[in-house]
């Protein structure tokens, strides 16, 4: 059973957006994804949802994103009063500093984005299985 709340994907790379959408589609979740192509857009989309008294069931962010970068976005989200979505960092980097910084900024999870497409699909599947099926967000 999957809760049909929206997932926000913050990603500036168009190819990655396409591949992510394709992966979700392949996993039978074609409509779940909302996309923000930079940090600023992501923040306003989150705030917009908050104003309606809603939250994304999951926010997936990349670190290297324009205008407001991933870590700054985490900082901003921490300031929001009615925000409780788990934020998952999906980054090509796995530098120790990045990983630790993100956790300190209340990231819920840090996952390395695999280059191999099949591995990517498997990774997304795992994320959905855990964050949308097991994990509870209210």
């Amino acid at each position, binding site marked *: 059973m999957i809760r049909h709340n929206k997932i926000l994907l913050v990603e500036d*790379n168009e*190819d*990655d957006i396409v*591949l992510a959408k*394709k992966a979700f589609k392949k996993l039978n979740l074609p409509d779940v994804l909302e996309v923000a192509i930079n940090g600023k857009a992501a923040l306003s989309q989150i705030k917009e949802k908050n104003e309606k008294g809603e939250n994304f069931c999951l926010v997936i962010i990349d*670190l*290297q994103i324009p205008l407001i970068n991933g870590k700054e976005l985490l900082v901003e989200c921490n300031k929001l009063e009615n925000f409780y979505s788990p934020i998952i960092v999906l*980054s*090509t*980097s*796995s*530098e120790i500093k990045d990983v630790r910084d993100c956790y300190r900024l209340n990231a819920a999870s840090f996952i390395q*984005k*695999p*280059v*191999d*497409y*099949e591995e*990517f699909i498997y990774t997304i599947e795992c994320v959905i299985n855990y964050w949308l099926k097991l994990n509870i967000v209210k």
Partner: protein
Amino acid sequence: MNQINKVAPQYKFIEQFFKEAPIAFVVLNYDGFLQYANNHFLSSMGLEIEDLPNIHYKDITHPDDINKVGHKIKDLIQGKIKSFKIEKRYITKKKRVIWGSLFVSSINISRDQSNQILAIIQDVTAEKEAELTAKKRLENLNAILENTEDSIWSIDKNYKLLVANTAFKRMVSTYLGREPIEGESIIFDFLPPDIKTYWKLAYEKALSGKSFKVDFRPQNNNKLILHLTFNPIYDVGEVIGVNIISRDITEIKKKELAVKQQDEDLLHIQQEAKISSWRWNKTQNITVYTGSLLGILGSFDKNVIHLNPQDLFQKIARPEDKKDLWKKVKRKIKENKPFSYETRIVTESGKIKYVKIIGSECYLDSTGNFIQRGSLQDITAFKLQEKNTLENKERLKALINNSTVGVGLVTREGIILKANEAFAKILGFTKKEMLRQNALELTHPEDREHTKSYMDSLFDGLINSYHTEKRYIKKSGEIIWVELTLTVVKDTKGKPLYTIGQVQDITARKKEEADVRKVVKERTAKLEAINKELEAFSYSVSHDLRAPLRSINGFSKILLDEYCDTIDDEGKMYLQKIHGASNRMAGIINDLLDLSRISQYDYRKSEVNLSEVVFEVINTIKTENQYNKTRIIVEEDLVCCGDRQLIKILLTNILTNAFKYSSKNPKPEIIIGQKEIEGKKTFFVKDNGVGFDMIYSKDLFKDFLRLHPAEEFEGTGVGLAIVKRIIDRHNGQIWAEGKVGDGAIFYFSI
């Protein structure tokens, strides 16, 4: 005639007979008053006849004898005895003592007279005195006999004890448990049989009329030595016994031996010291030389020992010395004065020797002979050594003076006792000026505290030498850097006297060092900047290069999966290649990042058990891959020093290779061990895989170089480059040996 008239009439009769008798004659009444005395008595006593009636016998008797005489007279008066004989002392008028031998009896001169006492006195003073002297002598003799330590005893012909002194009795009683009794056989039972025999033989010898002396060691006590004197006792020309005197001479013998030993030692010492002492009896002109006179004089003929010192010196003197030195010696000898000279002599073989001749003050010995003593010593060795030392000292002095290294003697307080030219020059002073300086004051103020502390350590004996670099201030005020080595010099008792300092001006070197440091600092800064850039670059590589790769990978995969109907086989093959290439490139990027991480890794050195790490790595490799048939031999407890994390990465790469390249052998085998190569502990990893051509051995560790195509063995070619980086970080060495188709050995030392 006057005298006669003075005599009472009743004694006239007696006087007729005794007046002029050569024997003293006295008459007393019963009250003890003298009634009459003849001339002999009166003159002996210094009395006059008219004194008599008032003299009581007690008045002229020695006080000690009064009682004795009184008792006898009382007995006589009471009629108990008719007469008695007695010896008593008289006191003359001049207070002299006269011994008298008296015959006393009571007589009746006339009826009307009361009884009288008659005494005939013989002067025995001479005999008494002789007797007393003899008695005294005997007493003294007895005292000597009784008090002497010597045991003295005599026996009769049957070995029976006649008489013995206390010493003998005491000695015997220690064995016998009681004092020996006179008349007892002296061959005591406690004596061992052989001693009994000894005594019997000795007694028999003496009994046969022989006097003899013998040193006797009772066998039960080897240390004890008795000197025995046996003398036969004669009676009327016949031996009736033996008198024995036994003296313990153990100590004497011991001392004798000690003296003898001392003499020998002295002689030995004299020989060792090449010294001969002489004793010249000038009165009789006899000289005795001790020690090795001939040895000292070399090949001089043996007759020299018969010469007196004066003639001897004359003989051994060098002709050129005869005038002054030997003349002086001659004069001193003539004047009987002491002398001491050092000179040279020439031996017959022409060798020159240094000798020291000494003569003492002359003295008269107990026999009235005039004696001079002295010695002759070969001091050649000392002289040569002295000369050598002097030369060495001169050489050292010259060396120090001409040295380009500054040398100075400095006290604890910094006072410069000596300084050579170079030391003075370094500080811009003249040699003379240096002696007025204080080393501590010349020291740069910032270095003074440190200087004081090591000077204290040197003088307190905590350290013997100290090496340092410090600053001095030159006469001109210029600051210079010197390299200083200080060594403390101690006296024979170990008390520090001063330090010898060696000083070298290293200002130029210091400046160079500073320059180098500056350059290094600049370069380090640059390198750090480059590293930062590199870090940023690695970061962007990891991110930026991976993104397009992901696109290539993802879309080629989608094309292959979802558009397979519209693409022909050739097209699919190309897509496959694109897909594969993107995966390999991702691998390369990962490895590149690992590589850059190692260079920046903050490594920590510790002791690492290499064998343990090997097992960990093997386990990881085996879980990830299928190398189950590979046989692995690991030497136990291989230990090295380095960063455990890096060593693990190193071993992972080497072992992965070993597994990988031996995987096509039907019986793959990997050996990990240790060996000493050129004195260095070296580890090795040996496999029986495909090996490599030694031509490429130098290229093995270059980045991205692969000797085998990826189709045969997977890999990016970065593994050994990482290995090399890790080895470099440890300042170690790595090389490999191999042969195509015959395995490879990787050697490395950390």
